């Protein structure tokens, strides 16, 4: 038997203010780190806005409504800065990238979480992570040298087959001979964003409780019905988040797009035509921005891209919050 010793007399509480000193130091450091991120963000916004201001003032509302971008003086007329065709290019390339990347990424993630044998799982994850580590300039060059020329034949085939159908025909128009255009850039970007979407959706799918899956199986669900009934509703927020991160990368992707999109300022439904995105225009023209305020105008494109990204992310957050309330109740 252990000896039961007398407990020392009850001690009064010592007043130590608001927690131990170490806790206060910890919270101060964390706060500083958080504030630093915000400060950097504000600083970037302020300085780029200041740099962009001359061009924004010069172009006025036309900066976002005009499709015409002429950074030179032509016949005595001043330069024209209209970003609309680049906004269009960014949109088209991003949509193409998402259309290819999202189903593939979700498919890979489902394969990894629900189907793949454990041995295969780590191999596939490694390969996909490796894909993420390839520099984007390499993707761009591969796009120019290999993918573009190879795809021209496919584009020509599609154009030949579908070109005469009213709406589809305008989407699948005459390709550029080099193969560089919206479609090629979009597909290259798709490959680049697959790793990030895959790895996040995989993490999200892995958090679906077994109880939910078993509930579906107990109702006689097949594996696919279980995925639709239990995995997807549970993962909706995370999947949107993953797609948004992919979209952010797609919209901001610069060098790979600059190399593969063909550098043309135009708004055309033809997906095989050349174009430009906000990011690629900046990269391609920063060395030779034209007459003042050309440099400022390029920076203004960056500000515009930043603004669009913020708006889209905010919209996505609202969608996720509403869906969570609807599906998981107000607490989630």
């Amino acid at each position, binding site marked *: 038997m252990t000896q039961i010793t007398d407990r020392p007399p009850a001690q009064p509480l010592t007043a130590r203010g608001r927690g131990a000193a170490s806790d206060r130091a910890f919270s101060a450091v964390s706060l500083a780190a958080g504030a630093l991120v915000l400060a950097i963000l504000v600083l970037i916004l302020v300085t780029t806005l200041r740099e962009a201001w001359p061009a924004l003032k010069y172009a006025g509302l036309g900066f976002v409504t005009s499709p015409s971008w002429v950074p030179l003086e032509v016949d005595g007329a001043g330069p024209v800065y209209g970003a609309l065709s680049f906004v269009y290019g960014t949109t088209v390339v991003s949509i193409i990238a998402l259309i290819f990347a999202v189903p593939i990424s979700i498919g890979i993630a489902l394969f990894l979480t629900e189907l793949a044998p454990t041995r295969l799982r780590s191999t596939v994850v490694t390969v996909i992570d490796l894909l993420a580590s390839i520099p984007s300039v390499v993707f761009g060059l591969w796009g120019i040298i290999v993918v573009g020329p190879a795809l021209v034949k496919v584009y020509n085939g599609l154009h030949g087959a579908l070109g005469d159908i009213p709406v589809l025909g305008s989407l699948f128009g005459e390709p550029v001979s080099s193969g560089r255009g919206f479609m090629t850039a979009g597909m290259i970007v798709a490959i680049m964003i697959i790793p990030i979407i895959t790895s996040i959706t995989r993490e999200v799918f892995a958090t679906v409780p077994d109880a939910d899956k078993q509930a*579906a199986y*107990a*109702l006689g669900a097949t594996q696919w*019905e279980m995925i639709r009934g*239990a995995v997807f509703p*549970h993962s909706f927020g995370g999947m949107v988040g993953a797609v948004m991160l992919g979209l952010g990368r797609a919209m901001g992707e610069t060098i790979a797009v600059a190399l593969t999109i063909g550098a043309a300022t135009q708004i055309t439904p033809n997906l095989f035509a050349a174009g430009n995105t906000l990011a690629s225009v900046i990269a391609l023209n920063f060395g030779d921005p034209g007459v003042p305020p050309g440099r400022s105008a390029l920076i203004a494109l960056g500000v515009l891209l930043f603004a669009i990204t913020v708006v889209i992310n905010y919209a996505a957050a609202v969608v996720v919050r509403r869906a969570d309330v*609807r599906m*998981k*109740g*107000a607490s989630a």
Partner: protein
Amino acid sequence: MTATNDRPAVHIDAGWRHDGAERQPADGGAALMELRDVSVFYGDYEAVRGATLPVRQNEITAMIGPSGCGKSTILRALNRMNDLIRGARVTGTITYLGQDIYARDVDPIQVRRQIGMVFQKPNPFPKSIYENVAYGIKINNIKGNMDDMVEEALTGAALWDEVKDKLKTSGMALSGGQQQRLCIARTIAIKPAVILMDEPCSALDPIATGRIEDLMYELCKQYTIVIVTHNMQQAARVSHHTAFFTAEVDEKQVRHGRLVEFGETGRIFTNPKDPRTEGYITGRFG
């Protein structure tokens, strides 16, 4: 959630269910399912060894016993949920309407369509109340008016009055007891023949437990129920037949679940034949 209190209180001692008049004759019900010498393995480990018992139609069959006695394992073998666990396998035969549910040509999805399951922790899908119930109906392609079928299932699970005005809100926003009844509604929506319940009340308070027990009693008029429970009073209150399992250590010092005794609930609790059963129900063991 005011609606939860307008029903009679819990039957802590629901004697009316015990007396012979309320019960079906002890061996009158036909066996809908039969287990013959059923063992369940996880890899090389034999979790339950050689259980033989019938599951009679329109009855509540309770499985009781201490932790690790294999009662949940046996329950999950009844609708092939163990198939989902890597390395799990079943020997012996389990029949449903005379058909071996582990036969080569039997699809586990068809088995689960006829033999549904309610789990220990209420697990509604992260969807609306309506969608929770409609899910099983949709995937099983059951024809009919969806609204009517959802209402019927929720009514059958004694939940309709509480949720009829908020069918579009999330099933996860309900209280624990309501969630469990939603899970029961989801199960009966596809009209299985058998409902397996794996400690359905262990996460619930006594009032919610009482309501589920009342509901089970109603349900067994149309369904056949097998319930695993830690709560002996619950088994005594609701079940017609009781199977008592225990864990035994064999000569190699490995624990196996064993079925000790099966019989009419009243008899098991008042006049157990096996001393181990008696020890457990009188609280001397387990």
